[in-house]
Structure formats: structure tokens, C-alpha cells
């Protein structure tokens, strides 16, 4: 494997880490809105309380890694999707503020407002991330210097919105399963009931998205045919894993259900990566302007240096992330430090 491919994988790992970890706390947003009782809401919020902040770091580090390894891609995507990314940033700031400020005052209206802000900004974030991914697959009109001159409306075409919707469904399902893991009693029962709807909803989105991709993304046809064995294997695995979730829940194996949901995110990202490789941004209609792991990358020297930085750093990060999740394992207990 050459360095550029390694970095394609590494950036992928960071963004998958983001999707898996921040996925469940983004999904918590709309679910929180569906529980009316303040105490239940606090329990849901505190299920993600100690870790949401660390989860968001995956996005920031993913962004930094993209800048370091593929500066051209970083520049093209972020300036080309300017309005969408600004909206995403506002949603993320607002979301952080909502979590922090909600608990600071007991007033009913105060809390209702921040709960609404939290739900709306979570859904908006998930949707916009999905739309961005959708546009990378669908293709944007890059010019010869790698610039995209579009605008928000150009980004919100049906295919990108479908990917956005799938992302929201995925994260709601993921959040749902995480919360089942962290709650008990009546609240958990309710969450279990919801899972009977959130899991099929995601599965439906996933299937529609895959069929649509095969049918409408004609520019991917060659790649899809060529990589058919891997892609169909991944897709089958993804469907089987997701189908296993309701089974695991019926048997009361909450941990396996959540793990399955993590794996379905991983398989989705693998599908995305396997379809895109070696491209990072597909250009349409002029495919020659696509940004790939070679014309979008930093020099070999830089990639090499950063590879060793990551080689040392990533295991350390994984080690203490895991130990922090371990410390906060088990059901949520509200204490004076809770949100």
C-alpha cells in the first residue's frame, strides 16, 4: 500500500470514528424531544453527558487530518460547500450550548427551549453531514484548479438529500440502541418499542439509497461493476448485521444490538470508501478534474511524517477513549454533577 492509500484509510478511520461515536449522540437529539418528562430527558442527556465532547473531537481531528494529508480536497470541499458548512458549524455550536445551558436553570420554558435547540441542531448536523457525503459521491462541477462554484441550492439535490435522510435515520437508530444500553425500567421499555420502528426505517433508507445509487450514479457504473464482489459482500454483511439488531434486542442482548449498529456504520463507511477509492471528490461533468488521493495530497515527506505521528498517537487515543468509556459504563445514575 502506498502512503496516499494509507492516508485515505486513516482519514476514513477518523471519520468512521466520528460517525460511530458522535453518531449516537447526534441521534439522541430527536429522541430526547420525544420523551416529555424532564427526569427522563436528563437521563438521556446524561447518557451522552461525559462523552459527547470527546466524540466531537473525532470530527475536528478528522478535519485536521484531511487538511494535513489532502489539502486540496480540504480547500475544495470546505470552500465549495461554504454555506452548508457554516450551517453545520452553527448547528454544532448551538448543540454544544444547548447541552451546557439546559441544566443550568430549572425553568420549564428554559429547558424546553434548549431541548428543542438540541433536537433541531442534532438533526440538522446529521442531515448536512449526509448531504456533504452525498455530493462527494454524486459529483460536483470542479474546475481545473479544483474549485467548485455552486451554492447551497445546488448541493441540496434529491440524491444528496436522500443520503442526508439515510444519515439521520442511521444516527437515530444508533442513538436509540445506545440509549437502550444506558437506561433501565419503563424508559428503556419505551426505547425498545421505538427500536422496532427506527431499525426498519434505517434499513429501508439504506436499501433505497443503494438501489438509487446503482440506478442513477451512471458515472460510478464502471467502478461498481469492477468491484462487484467486494461491494455486494459488504452490502450483504451490512444488511445481515442490521437485521440482527431486532433479534438481539428480543433476546435482551443490548450490547450486541449496539455493537451491530456500530458495525453497520462501519460497513456503510467501507461501502462509501470502496466506491470512491481512489477518488475523494468526484467531478461532474468533467471527470478529469476529480480530486483523488494523488492530485489532492500533500507531499510524500509530509504524509510520511504524519504517518508516524498517527502511528504513535492513534493507539494512545484509542486506549484512553476506551478506558474512559469503561469508567462510565453501566446505566445512567443522576448525581449532582449531572446535566
Amino acid at each position: 500500500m502506498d502512503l496516499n492509500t494509507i492516508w485515505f484509510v486513516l482519514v476514513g478511520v477518523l471519520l468512521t470514528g466520528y460517525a460511530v461515536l458522535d453518531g449516537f449522540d447526534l441521534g439522541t437529539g430527536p429522541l430526547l424531544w420525544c420523551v416529555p418528562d424532564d427526569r427522563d430527558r436528563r437521563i438521556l442527556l446524561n447518557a451522552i453527558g461525559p462523552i459527547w465532547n470527546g466524540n466531537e473531537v473525532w470530527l475536528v481531528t478528522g478535519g485536521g487530518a484531511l487538511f494535513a494529508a489532502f489539502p486540496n480536497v480540504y480547500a475544495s470541499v470546505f470552500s465549495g460547500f461554504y454555506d452548508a458548512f457554516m450551517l453545520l458549524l452553527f448547528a454544532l455550536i448551538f448543540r454544544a450550548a444547548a447541552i451546557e445551558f439546559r441544566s443550568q436553570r430549572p425553568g420549564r420554558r428554559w429547558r424546553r427551549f434548549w431541548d428543542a435547540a438540541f433536537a433541531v441542531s442534532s438533526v440538522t448536523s446529521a442531515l448536512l453531514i449526509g448531504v456533504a457525503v452525498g455530493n462527494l459521491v454524486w459529483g460536483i462541477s470542479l474546475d481545473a484548479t479544483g474549485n467548485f462554484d455552486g451554492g447551497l441550492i445546488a448541493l441540496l439535490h434529491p440524491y444528496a438529500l436522500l443520503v442526508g435522510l439515510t444519515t439521520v435515520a442511521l444516527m437515530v437508530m444508533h442513538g436509540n440502541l445506545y440509549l437502550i444500553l444506558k437506561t433501565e425500567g419503563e424508559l428503556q421499555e419505551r426505547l425498545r418499542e421505538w427500536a422496532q420502528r427506527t431499525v426498519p426505517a434505517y434499513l429501508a433508507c439504506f436499501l433505497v439509497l443503494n438501489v438509487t445509487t446503482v440506478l442513477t450514479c451512471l458515472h460510478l457504473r464502471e467502478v461498481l461493476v469492477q468491484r462487484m464482489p467486494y461491494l455486494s459482500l459488504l452490502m450483504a454483511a451490512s444488511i445481515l448485521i442490521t437485521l440482527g439488531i431486532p433479534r438481539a434486542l428480543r433476546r435482551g442482548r443490548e450490547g450486541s444490538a449496539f455493537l451491530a449498529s456500530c458495525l453497520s456504520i462501519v460497513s456503510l463507511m467501507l461501502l462509501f470508501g470502496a466506491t470512491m477509492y481512489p477518488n475523494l471528490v468526484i467531478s461532474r461533468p468533467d471527470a478529469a478534474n476529480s480530486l483523488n488521493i494523488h492530485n489532492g495530497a500533500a507531499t510524500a515527506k509530509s504524509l510520511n511524517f504524519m504517518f508516524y505521528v498517527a502511528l504513535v498517537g492513534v493507539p494512545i487515543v484509542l486506549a484512553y477513549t476506551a478506558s474512559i468509556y469503561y469508567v462510565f459504563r453501566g446505566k445512567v445514575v443522576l448525581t449532582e454533577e449531572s446535566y
Partner: protein
Amino acid sequence: MNVETLSRIQFALTISFHFVFPPMTIGLGLVLVVLQTLRVRTGNPLYLDLARFWTRVFGLIFAIGVATGIPMEFQFGTNWASYARFVGDIFGSPLAIEGLYAFFMESGFLALLLFGWDRIGPRMHLFSTCMVALGAHFSAIWILVANSWMQTPAGYHLARMMKVTADGGQFPVATDLGAVPFELREIRLPPDYVVQPEDLGHVRAVVDNFREAILNPSTLDRLAHTVIGCWITGAFVVVAISAWWCLRGRHPEHARISLKIGVVLATVACVLQWIAADSTARGVARNQPTKLAAMEGLATTGPDASLGLVGWVSWRRDASGEITGIEERSLRIPGMLSVLVSGDFLHPLRARDTVVTGLQDLPSDALLRARHPGASDAEIARLRPRYWPNAPVLFQTYHLMIALGSVLTGQALLACLWWRTGRLWAVERPEVRWFLISLLAAPLMAQLALQAGWFTAEMGRQPWVVYEVLKTGDAVSPVVRAPQVLTSILLFLAIYAVLSILFVTLLLKKIREGPVPSGGGPPTGPLPLSHRSGRQTGI
């Protein structure tokens, strides 16, 4: 306004708002380490109460700091795409390292610090506190590495993307070679090459040596100066809040401990700061003479340069409004700037002969000729002022920083003196009361000094985004338009206004509540859940 101005305003707005919070967490982190160490060593519940209180304050500041920090990571791409392409090979690395080595550490262990009181033991809690403080410092290190590289770029060369044919012919990227096969290759440019606007898109900075890039000529000075500034800010936050408790007679025992810790940290940091500041300023004189000349309002080159204290610098303009020079009216110490620049304090008379270059000779003729090939001497002289930073503003921000630093140092020293003589605790005496009241303003002064210093550093770099390599105007995103940036600025303003109001209200509420004694007093266990209040009682 054009996209460049708007993008600069947006960057300045987002970074200065963000920069309110990290200095406090860096300084408070140290205070928390001290308190947790004392708690583990002595087992005194007072330290535990204080640690809990300051951790709550820390948590609030940290949360806003993270929320406002996220845009910073992405604005290089959204607003400064040409910059990102130009320097990505070298500038992206510190940002990625910051994420990997600082953010994860900080936010991960913060979870243990904030929510781990009942889940981990005191020693583990102390360890988490150290990790959070260390993470905050690492974060500062990598951001300052990245920023210092923009100030004094090193360890790189410029390279141009060319089409190279099999027979060794090199052609610009835009050339259509027809059916001739070619490969794209980066061709090294000579070391004195100056980037022209038309080079953008196919010339970029390529790293030679990461060690040199990271430890570039200004990194260590600027790192020390900024981090010490952060310690001062954090220390004075603690000092001010404790002083307020003293004035109101609240939590007397807690207030004394906090005040002592704060005062010690503030004094040590203030004294160190003068050394770091001197070294930093001398570095600026050496590496960025244009910035130094603008900071001091120095027009002419020569020995015996004087140091400004207070006053006014303004532009001199010709009939068409073009800037031709500066006018400076200020109170100055003759020869002092030469002495400071030389660093030779033992021989002030000899040191006065040190030549300091003025704005009239900066930037150098060589640079201007390279940037404007074929320009006549008269044209060069006319173009020169366009390469000056905004001297009238820099003079003020720079001297404001020094003035505030002096006041803060005075306060810290006086507090130490009165603490040793016991007068500091005699709150009933009017002069002590007035002094404590003056301490309430100290955190604001420290914040203002930091911001003024940061503005001096960043505006002093203009019109370059990478000093004497890439102009700020050439760095903006080519596809982003003014209305888009204007909209995002307005949204940022709105959301930041809301955040600051809420932040200040909640911080004041926390200060009013103060530390909660763990023995007796309100309950510290899990709150009765029927209480809608959540945090109202008990904390």
C-alpha cells in the same frame, strides 16, 4: 467590502471570541492541579470544596471554548482555500497533531474530571486533572507552532507544479501539450523567489524539514509569551473571584486559600512574562523588522532609537489619499529601543548605537523589486507603504498590552507584599478594600492585554498571511462571495452575542453560589429527583 476584508473580519471575530476561553482554561488548569495535589496530600476538605467549585467554573469555560473552537478548524478551508492549498503540506500537520495529541486528551480526561468524582479515586482524579492541564498546554503549543510558522516560515521551499515531458521539457500546467505524454512534477523554486498573484494554484510551500518548521525562529518565544499570558489570565480570574468573596465576607476560609494560590501564580507568571516579552520583542526586531517599526511608530532608520510609552501615530497621506509615511507624537525614552533591541543591558551607552530599521526602509528593496519586477525607484518608494502593517492601530494595541501588563504586575507584587505583612486580610481597612476592588478588574485587563497582544502579532504580519511569502489578499477562497461571508459574520455575531450573555450570567451565578462545604451544609449526594432544579441546590 470585498471578500478579503470580510474574511479577515470573520476570522478576527471568531478567533478573538474563541481566544477569550482557552487562556482561562490553561491558567485554571494549573490552579486545579495545585488544589487537587493539596487535596491528595493533606486530605483537607477545604481543598476538595475548592477543587469542585473551580472544576465547575472550568467546565463551563471549557464547553464554550470547544463550541467556539470548532469553526476555527474549518475556516482555513471555507474562507481561505487558496491559503490551505498553498501551505497545506506544512500547516495542516500541527492542526492534525493538535487534534490527536491535545484535544482527545483534554476532552477525554475532562469527562473524568467533571463527572468522575464518585467513580474514580482522588489520585486518579489528580491524574486526570494533570492530563487536562497538560492537554490544554499541548493545544496551545501546536496552535502557536502553526501560527509562528505564519510569522517566521522555515523548513520549507516553494515549488511549482509543471508538466514534464519524457525528454525533460518543462511546461506550465496551463500549457496544452496535445498528444505529447507528460507527467506532473513539482519543480523547486529558488530560495529568494517571491510569489506573484498569477502563481496561485500551481505554486505551494513544500516541507523540507519538520523540525525546522516546528521550531521556527519565533516558536519558542511566542509560545512562552502566550502561555505565560494565559497563566496570568487564569490566575487573575481566581484572584478576582476570591477578592470578591473577601469583600463580601463570604466563604472566608476558601477565599483565603484561593487568593493565595492565585496571587502566587500571578506573581510568578508576571515576573516571568517580562523576560519572555523582552525576548519576544527582540525576536520580532530580528525576524519581522517591519512589524517592530510599526509597533513603535518608527519612521527612520538609525542608532539611538527611542521607545514609545504613550501617544499617537497617524498616517501621512498625499493629495490622492495614498499613504506616504507616518506621523508620530508620543512620549518616548531616548535610545531605549536600541538598548532593548541589542539586549545588551550591561553596556547601555554602547547599546544605544544599535541601528533599528524604520518603516522608510521596510520592507527591503530586494523584496519589493522581486514582487514588482521592472518597477522604477520612484515606483518602489510609492509601493512601499502598501506593504506596511497598520501602524496607527499597532502602536496602540502594543502599548496597551504593555501598560496593562505593568498594572497587573504591580497588583500582583502589591498583593504579595501585603500578604507577607498580613495587611491583605484586614478587609475593613479602606486601602485594602480599594485594592481588592481593583483586583476585580484584573481578569478583564488580562484578557484585554492578551487580545491586544494577539492583534499586534496578527495585524503586524499584514499584508502577509505568511510573512513575506504569501499575501493575505491572495489567500482567500476564489469561489466564496462577499454576501456569503457577510451572512456568516452576522450569524456568528448573533450566536456569539447569545453565548456571551448566557456565559456571563451563568458564570456570575456560579460565583455567587461559591464553593459548597462538604461537611454539613446542603446535601452533596444525589439530588432528590423530584427537584426540578437540577443544579440549583447543593452546588
